[in-house]
């Protein structure tokens, strides 16, 4: 672990990072209007505030609304128009590019592959990672080679093997290859001149059902169209549709919805943390349900991993042994999830969602129904006696 980096490492081509603080100044895709300041010794300032409040208010919601199309095959909402994609990504980090790691940048990678844009122009997150991985791989190969050579030398010194000159020659050749700068200026000149090629963007921004519902019900900034794309889906219809599609395979139209549908559980937690100002993103790659970012993925790594656990403590559920059984999880499950989170330096938070009995939420509006759910957080950290002495 304590191996030193190679001294002759070629310097990374530094590219200027965009000003993320300016780019992502808006935390949500809404317009927020600041009222004029209140000056206590100037009574006219109150009038100015009242005037602005009553007569010069601009609506929070965008005009026209951003649009997305519900897609039953991917069980998500697809956003294809550039204006909506830009708004959702830059203000609040909603959704994921279908062919990218997070920000939809497939088009610039494709343009680079076709030689439309330069080799180091507008590098995407994926490309930066790829370059770093390549470097790391070369370093590992070089390290393995050096270790092998050391053992060979040691054995030769001890007279256990005959020192073969032939065995060293190819490795030193290998060395010169590894340490050579990867690109020489002459090669750069050989690059094809930028061409004018129209590249069709095959990518869309994909919103999970929870994100789409938050944007449409919670913020009112998104209009969700039906699968055919010709009619908007009303918010209450979207809720029942999304609840059915949160199962795999999805439920039939006449299925009875449960108060602990996957969608409702996820949405309660999603809404809870979004309301508290966190940037919430799916955490499938870290074996958690959600990841919490302080400001957003471009600023820092996610600090917390969220596990959603339904809690059936209402007396109604006492008569439901199957659900009660689902409530208790084995220790080894917790250990493995916690280990993965610790490995990537994330704190695990178990979020218990109090599930109300079905008769309590029947016939209620969305807001009243969501109020019946309770959320409790338990943060978990592994304690190592030898390492946590301070």
């Amino acid at each position: 672990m304590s191996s030193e980096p190679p001294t002759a490492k070629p310097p990374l081509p530094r590219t200027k990072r965009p000003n993320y603080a300016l780019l992502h100044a808006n935390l949500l895709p809404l317009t927020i209007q600041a009222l004029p300041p209140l000056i206590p010794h100037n009574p006219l300032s109150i009038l100015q505030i009242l005037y602005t409040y009553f007569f010069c208010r601009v609506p929070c919601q965008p005009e026209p609304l951003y649009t997305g199309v519900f897609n039953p095959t991917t069980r998500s909402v697809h956003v294809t128009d550039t204006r909506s994609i830009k708004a959702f990504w830059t203000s609040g980090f909603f959704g994921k590019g279908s062919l990218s790691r997070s920000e939809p940048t497939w088009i610039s990678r494709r343009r680079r592959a076709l030689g439309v844009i330069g080799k180091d122009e507008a590098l995407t997150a994926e490309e930066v990672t790829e370059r770093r991985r390549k470097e790391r791989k070369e370093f590992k190969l070089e390290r393995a080679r050096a270790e092998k050579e050391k053992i060979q030398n040691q054995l030769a010194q001890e007279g256990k093997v005959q020192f073969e000159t032939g065995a060293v020659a190819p490795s030193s050749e290998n060395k010169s290859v590894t340490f050579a700068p990867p690109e020489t200026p002459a090669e750069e000149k050989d690059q094809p001149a930028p061409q004018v090629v129209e590249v069709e963007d095959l990518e869309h921004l994909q919103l999970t059902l929870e994100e789409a519902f938050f944007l449409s019900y919670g913020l009112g900034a998104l209009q969700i169209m039906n699968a055919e794309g010709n009619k908007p889906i009303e918010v209450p219809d979207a809720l029942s549709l999304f609840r059915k599609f949160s199962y795999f395979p999805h439920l039939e139209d006449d299925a009875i919805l449960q108060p602990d549908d996957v969608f409702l559980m996820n949405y309660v937690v999603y809404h809870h943390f979004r309301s508290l100002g966190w940037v919430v993103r799916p955490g499938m790659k870290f074996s958690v349900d959600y990841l919490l970012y302080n400001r957003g993925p471009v600023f820092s790594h996610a600090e917390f991993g969220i596990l959603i656990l339904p809690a059936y403590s209402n007396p109604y559920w006492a008569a439901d042994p199957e659900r009660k059984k689902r409530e208790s999880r084995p220790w080894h499950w917790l250990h493995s999830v916690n280990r993965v989170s610790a490995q990537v330096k994330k704190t695990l938070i178990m979020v218990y969602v109090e599930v109300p009995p079905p008769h309590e939420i029947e016939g209620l509006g969305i807001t009243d129904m969501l109020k019946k759910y309770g959320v409790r957080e338990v943060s978990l950290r592994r304690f190592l006696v030898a390492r946590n002495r301070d």
Partner: protein
Amino acid sequence: MSYSDLAVSSHPHLIRIVENHLLNHADWRSVTQHAFTPRPLLSGIPPEPVYVDPDVDPSKPPTEAALEQVEWLLPVDLREKWSPRKMAEVFDSLPEGVWGENAKGEKRTKRMLLAVVAEDSTVSYYFVHDGIVKPRQN
């Protein structure tokens, strides 16, 4: 084990999502659909070998055979429930005789990539072997 009609109708969608991901995101070639039962599968050749045999010297460039190694993929949904029996059924549906040899010259264990599709369009790939194989050294 049988699949419900709704589940069966979702299989072509999963195939299409993974095929699109392989071609346009991971740069695979010769990606082919196979209408096998119980599950439709995909096969293709990755841009670089994705499985490194633990008995092969990693410092040597990959052989011609390794560069042309066809990998099989099983597209699944993140919320599906799997069991060893269901997995074994898929392995049984794979064709015999295309598996080649490992670095020691023995007949290779069948393997496929489980392509897990999540709602946010993430596709995660996991190797699944039909039995025990020698673990890889990092």
